[in-house]
């Protein structure tokens, strides 16, 4: 450890760059040369880079642990190169491609590289047969790279690189089997939904830059008090009783925008719809990206910017409420799904809701702890499901069929290792006492009840006080959380029983299965021992490359809870993360409550959920569920169709934008092009049609028109024109009038406009005079030409009063030295008289 520390001083930890770089190298080599390298080399490359990255992360983590003493937050920093500079006029932000490591992302990095490595190992055999093997590993490595950039990034834009990078990898991996129309469009859906979230993040960055003048963590934290400035988000609406519009603090806007980003990435209401569809990708992808790591990025961001979020109680309320609502909502959908990956997907959404509930009430440590434990048990569940699907695939090469719970049952006999590990992960997620899920979920629920965001003493600049949480918030949130826990226990038990207990129902999906027998309810009993021709290959246990990761993850799901087991007075994780959330925790208020009743409630919830599910699906063989479905078919169908949210979005938002786009195309074609191009063309051709009648084709007619023009010129010369040119100098008060020259013109003037000419006709072409401010003078000019014709012109000259009330201070400054009449004037002033301007300009520069 000493050696490591001396090799990498805390302000220049190149090791961080290596951790990030390694997966990128792997991705590049696998992606570009993978086809030629062969499977073994690709496997070696893909696994080794992640393995080494994990070891390096471990090294960094230990270094960090060494340096972090007590409350003082330690940071390991690596600064790469200057990316670009945002010079906004009032702040200058040099964005550096740099990484930093503290307790929060150090823990996260361990999870990402550790779980990532296990899943890489798992994919070795899982994807073995796939022709796009090298592509898969390239994408996976690229994903790890992006994820590491996301969590290591020292500023929001660097984080954003990883943020969108994981979105891209998710897109590519969901659409990995792109020849299916559905897979590809699921990828697109994921990417676009994520992009809506990214839009929020982009807006948040803009507002943060505007408010705090910086984009990196420490800069934002240092200047966060500016976030309490008010901002008017609505025009003045006197008639609505809002004479000053709607005034909110910038923190609220920033927080909402950030949370939009988090909701997109972490599949919260209303942007959760992409995650269940994302299950179209290969199962290891679902485990890695859509359960363990990427989807928790939103929670990570809330934790990372916790000091921004707590500035606005409203935002925290929104985070908590949306988290709770998502948890409940997704759990209801999971009740009726039969695709095992879909069940797990909705369970993921639900668990993510838990995490947001936790961070929303200010329990950042508890929320983040759930991220860690969830990564273990959900990855284990997904990989177990993958193992099951792998086994089913031996019987039927159909993605939908091999994932359908109705075709499984009794698999524990065929897949013993998978069953045991799945059981362990199941125990964790349903909150079996002393497993990891039990501790982390319990902590969140307890804090939901007891914590809220304090508001006293904090006001928006401009006087309005911050919004306060309603009284009952804690209780309601706790109740929802508890209800969700019961439901989680129920549907997870249903899943477990559906897959592993009972009899194997998969015989019927071999090709020679006779349809008529399928229609009757319990017929599959008679086919437990079908003829050899119909039996086909049996489901079989997976090779070691697949069950070893399962075993490790299962073990972790069971024991990881002891890192932070409040029940046993272990607070290691709390203390470890304490420095990170120090700022934010000051804004959170706690009620002191007794823990024992909550423990009872939690265990009861687990017992009720599991017990009911056991009774329904194991004891009664699913009879009550079927009865319920038949009893209220409409409702059941609604739940099975996921409350038709996708269809609702399709009709409203997507349909709306679609309509808008169709209208835009129409407008482009008929209005814009119609007015700018077609209408102009019409008028041009109309003019052409009319004017061509003037074309007689005879040369002399054309010459005649030419002569007419000359006649006009002659007429102009025949008449005298009393034109003049005035030079004015409003500041100095000097005016000259110059009569314009003409052929044999003679002039006479009447300078005081008394009706008497000052003299006879002569060659005097100019008069000059001075005026006082606000003085008006009338001058008359008469011109006589060679034919003796005369023309007269009355000229009025007015000197305006200097505009001293002007808004522009610059103009005032210009006016000041010349305020008094006849004052000496600065030759450099922009309004210098015309004659004087060229001389200095010419002589000014050699």
């Amino acid at each position: 450890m000493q050696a490591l520390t001396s090799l990498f001083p805390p302000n220049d930890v190149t090791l961080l760059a290596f951790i990030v770089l390694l997966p990128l190298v792997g991705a590049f080599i696998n992606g570009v040369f993978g086809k030629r390298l062969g499977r073994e080399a690709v496997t070696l490359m893909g696994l080794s880079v992640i393995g080494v990255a994990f070891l390096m992360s471990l090294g960094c983590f230990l270094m960090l642990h060494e340096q972090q003493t007590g409350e003082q937050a330690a940071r390991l920093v690596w600064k790469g190169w200057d990316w670009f500079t945002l010079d906004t006029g009032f702040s200058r932000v040099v964005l550096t491609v740099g990484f930093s490591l503290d307790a929060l992302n150090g823990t996260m990095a361990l999870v990402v590289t550790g779980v990532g490595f296990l899943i890489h190992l798992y994919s070795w055999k899982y994807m073995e047969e796939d022709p796009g093997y090298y592509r898969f590993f390239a994408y996976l490595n690229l994903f790890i790279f992006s994820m590491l950039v996301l969590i290591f990034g020292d500023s929001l834009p660097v984080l954003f690189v990883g943020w969108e990078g994981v979105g891209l990898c998710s897109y590519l991996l969901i659409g990995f089997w792109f020849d299916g129309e559905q897979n590809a469009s699921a990828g697109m859906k994921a990417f676009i939904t994520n992009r809506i979230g990214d839009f929020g993040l982009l807006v948040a960055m803009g507002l943060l830059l505007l408010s705090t003048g910086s984009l990196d963590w420490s800069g934002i934290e240092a200047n966060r008090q500016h976030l309490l400035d008010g901002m008017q988000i609505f025009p003045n609406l006197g008639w609505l009783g809002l004479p000053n519009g709607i005034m909110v603090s910038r923190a609220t806007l920033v927080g909402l925008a950030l949370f939009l980003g988090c909701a997109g990435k972490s599949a919260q209401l209303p942007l959760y719809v992409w995650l269940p569809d994302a299950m179209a990708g290969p199962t290891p992808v679902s485990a890695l990206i859509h359960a363990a790591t990427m989807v928790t990025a939103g929670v990570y961001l809330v934790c990372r910017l916790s000091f921004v979020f707590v500035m606005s109680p409203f935002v925290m309320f929104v985070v908590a409420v949306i988290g709770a609502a998502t948890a409940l909502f997704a759990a209801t959908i999971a009740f009726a799904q039969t695709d095992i990956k879909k069940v797990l997907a909705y369970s993921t959404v639900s668990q993510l809701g838990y995490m947001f509930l936790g961070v929303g009430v200010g329990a950042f440590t508890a929320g983040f702890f759930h991220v860690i434990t969830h990564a273990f048990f959900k990855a284990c569940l997904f990989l177990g499901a993958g193992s099951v699907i792998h086994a089913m695939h031996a019987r039927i090469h159909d993605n939908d069929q091999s994932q359908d719970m109705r075709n499984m049952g009794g698999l524990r006999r065929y897949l013993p290792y998978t069953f045991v590990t799945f059981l362990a992960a199941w125990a964790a997620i349903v909150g079996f006492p002393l497993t990891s899920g039990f501790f982390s979920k319990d902590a969140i629920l307890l804090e939901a009840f007891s914590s809220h965001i304090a508001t006293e003493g904090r006001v928006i600049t401009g006087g309005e006080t911050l919004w306060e949480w309603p009284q009952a918030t804690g209780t309601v949130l706790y109740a929802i959380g508890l209800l969700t826990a019961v439901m989680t226990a129920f549907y997870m038990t249903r899943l477990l029983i559906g897959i592993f207990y009972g009899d194997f129902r998969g015989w019927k999906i071999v090709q020679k299965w006779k349809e008529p027998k399928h229609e009757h309810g319990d017929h599959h009993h008679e086919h437990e021992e079908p003829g050899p021709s119909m039996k086909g290959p049996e489901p079989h246990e997976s090779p070691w490359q697949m069950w070893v990761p399962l075993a490790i993850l299962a073990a972790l799901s069971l024991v990881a809870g002891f890192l932070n087991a409040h029940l046993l007075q272990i607070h290691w994780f709390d203390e470890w993360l304490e420095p990170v959330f120090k700022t934010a925790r000051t804004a959170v208020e706690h009620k002191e409550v007794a823990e024992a009743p909550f423990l009872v409630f939690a265990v009861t919830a687990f017992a009720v959920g599991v017990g009911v599910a056991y009774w329904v699906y194991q004891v009664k063989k699913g009879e009550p569920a079927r009865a319920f479905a038949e009893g209220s078919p409409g409702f059941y169908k609604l739940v099975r169709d996921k409350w038709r949210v996708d269809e609702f979005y399709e009709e409203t938002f997507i349909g709306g934008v679609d309509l808008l786009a169709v209208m835009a195309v129409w407008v482009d074609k008929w209005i814009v092009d119609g007015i700018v191009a077609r209408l102009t063309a019409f008028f041009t051709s109309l003019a052409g049609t009319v004017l061509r009648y003037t074309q007689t084709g005879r040369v002399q007619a054309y010459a005649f028109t030419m002569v007419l023009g000359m006649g006009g010129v002659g007429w102009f010369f025949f008449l005298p024109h009393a034109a003049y040119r005035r030079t004015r100098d409003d500041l100095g008060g000097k005016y000259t009038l110059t009569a314009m020259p003409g052929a044999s013109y003679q002039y006479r003037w009447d300078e005081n406009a008394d009706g008497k000419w000052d003299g006879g006709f002569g060659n005097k072409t100019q008069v000059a005079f001075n005026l006082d401010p606000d003085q008006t003078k009338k001058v008359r000019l008469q011109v006589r030409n060679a034919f003796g014709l005369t023309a007269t012109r009355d000229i009025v000259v007015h000197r305006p009063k200097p505009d001293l009330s002007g808004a522009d201070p610059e103009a005032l400054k210009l006016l000041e030295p010349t305020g008094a009449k006849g004052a000496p004037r600065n030759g450099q002033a922009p309004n210098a008289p015309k004659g004087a301007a060229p001389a200095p300009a010419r002589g000014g520069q050699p």
Partner: protein
Amino acid sequence: MTLVGNIFFVLMAAVSLLGAIGTVASRNPIRSAVGLLVTIIGIAGLFLELKAEFMAAIQLIVYAGAVVVLFVFVVMLLGPDASKVPEGPPKGWAARALGGAAMAVFAGIASYLVLDSRPAPVPFPVVHADHGSVELVGRELFTKQLVPFELTTALLIVAVIGAIAVARAHVEKKTKARDERPAPQRFFVGPLHPRDAGHPLPKEHA
């Protein structure tokens, strides 16, 4: 200025004006051409008066020697039929008459203004003896004005080619006619009968 000079000026001015009237007023194009010639000679004389000997020479050589001769050629080539006035009312007479009248009025105004716009006429200054000589103009032409001068040569060549191209009509028809009946190629047979040579037969042989 000597009296001889005055007389010469008056004479040349009168000659050129009369020639111009003759050009415009004659019914016969040949007479118009002769009027033009007279005008040109008159103007050349005025050039001499203006100490522009080179220009006078050029005026005579190019205009009198080339342009007017070209006009006469064309008039002769077309013959009297070409200038015959076709039947029916002339087209566009109103425009022509009005245009002529307007032109005359305009010229009157312009002349009046020219003469009246200055308090005193601008007399000619004394100039160097070389003014307008061939040497000086040549030097000017071949040094400062070399590029425009060369461009003029290009213009003249293009004009010649263009004139030939425009005037030489129905060329294709002629070549086609020759192609249809190629001349026999018998070189050592002695004098040929016109029929064999491809020429149309004289009347008595037909």
